[in-house]
């Protein structure tokens, strides 16, 4: 059950990352289709509306708000962020920047190999990577706390690469 949930989260995360990838790559085709005479489905025969068009503002995809992935995974012995998580963290940063009353605790973790207190350091380093990404993108320092559990709170039990890769992670916990 636990594994299924984690898998779901991983898939969801990867899915989001895939979208992010597409968006960041310059599209050779025009990205906006204004319609044409041949395009029966999208073209409208309705006349132009010349009504007011004021300055807009961006807002997040509210549908996705509750479903943002909350876990960032790391490679062996690494605290560098995998590129696929850039967009996810941008969304979290956005959420924090847009609501100063929100705060998060970043919980860093390591796999079980090696010394325990050194692993506390590795988990903290990962949490700090995520923290910096959130700060750079508009979250404020007082919204973010970090804690490292090292190898003390594994998400997956077992001594194989599958468990290890699920344990090298930072969990983003919203506190309110």
């Amino acid at each position: 059950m636990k594994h299924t949930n984690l898998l779901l989260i991983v898939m969801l995360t990867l899915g989001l990352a895939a979208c992010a990838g597409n968006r960041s790559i310059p599209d050779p085709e025009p990205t906006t289709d204004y319609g044409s005479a041949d395009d029966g489905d999208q073209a409208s025969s309705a006349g132009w509306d010349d009504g007011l068009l004021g300055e807009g503002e961006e807002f997040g995809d509210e549908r996705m708000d509750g479903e943002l992935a909350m876990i960032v995974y790391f490679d062996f012995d690494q605290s560098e962020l995998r590129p696929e998580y850039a967009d996810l963290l941008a969304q979290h940063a956005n959420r924090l920047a847009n609501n100063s009353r929100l705060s998060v605790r970043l919980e860093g973790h390591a796999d079980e190999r090696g010394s325990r207190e050194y692993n506390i350091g590795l988990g903290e380093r990962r949490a700090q990577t995520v923290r910096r990404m959130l700060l750079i993108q508009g979250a404020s320092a007082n919204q973010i706390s970090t804690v490292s559990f090292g190898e003390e709170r594994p998400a997956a039990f077992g001594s194989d690469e599958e468990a290890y890769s699920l344990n090298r992670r930072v969990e983003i916990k919203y506190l309110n």
Partner: protein
Amino acid sequence: MTETFARRLVALGACLLLGATASAELNIEITRGGAQQVPVAVVPFGYDGSGATAPLDVAGVIAADLARSGRFAPIPISNMLQKPTTGIDVDFDDWRILGVEALVVGQVTQTGDNVYSIQFQLFDVFRGEQLVGYRMPASRGTMRAGAHRAADMIYEKLTGIPGVFGTKVTYVTAIGEGRDRLYRLVVADADGENENVIMESTDPIMSPAWSPDSRRIAYVSFEQNVSSIFIQTLRTGNRVRVSSRVGINGSPAFSPDGRKLVLTLGGADGNLDIHVMDITTREVTRLTTNRSIDTEGSWSPDGSQIYFTSDRSGGPQIYRVDATGGTPERVTFEGSYNARPRLSPDGKKLAMVHLDRGNYRIAVLDLERNDLLVLSTGDQDESPSFAPNSDSLIYATREGRRGVLATVSADGLIRQRLASGEGDVREPVWSPFPRY
């Protein structure tokens, strides 16, 4: 005499495999013996007091201690031709014929409601000489400690090395997998008996450390999802939170005079550095400032230096710095991963977690000769801690999914596994010598 025994003990030879001797939470099994085991006899003690038998099988405890050292092989009681309880009744020929080299006899005498006297004698069988004769008062509650003390005296007389049977160990256990996981901080006798849970939490507990007087234990607790360092007094159970700064509070270790703690602080930016705290004033001095992970501080026995793990060169290696500050000096160069330094109480050896061809193992660096000896054979061994006699170490190893404890002699010849009844056992720390 002592020398003769010592020489025999050091000699390499065949070994006997001994089965588990205790029915405690931690059962001791000798998994490999590289040293010759000297045959000894510990005769069941006589008893004079109320009830049919003494409150404790003192001879049984002594025999188990000697067997557990890996250096002695107590003969079975059923092989004994006589069962004397004082030296006067000993016929040495009956013991020479069995090939026994040392003989222990003794008795327990009740002298009051909860007052007993334990007396024992140790003999060199070949010479027919008494090596030790000792009598001590005890209560029902202290009789086991008295038996360990007797074993310590016997062991020291025969090997020239102080015994550690009267010492204690502390360790952490984690029971269950998942959110309801229960973490326990345990203090037990070195033979695994007498387990006491001194702290229990659903949040992780880690890095226990003894005070030099064995009366207090410092540890890290993650209550309320933040790390804090506590010092708990064993007798009262009272605990004080001594460090709960923003970010990491970790890796506490008492200075040899018991007045200071070395600890790791990370701050909001997560830059782990070694600090020293005056326990009374709580004043903190920062010893390292490197951007890397600096952690796992450990004092030299004279208190002048602090050894620590740092990955300033890339991977984790061990460094040392003056306890008053200065420029750290790198200590380990062999291998890509050396962490969690612990000095032997005699200051001659440095134990660490060492990555040995893909396996995390316990290794000891001889600080005088500068050579590294890998002592353990697991693939995820960690948390080495020296016995107060510097002669052996306790560490955590994995057996399947479970963490278990093991001991190994500092020369690597005698290795034992201590099986736990429950949960994942980790981070064993050997206490200092008891004070009688």
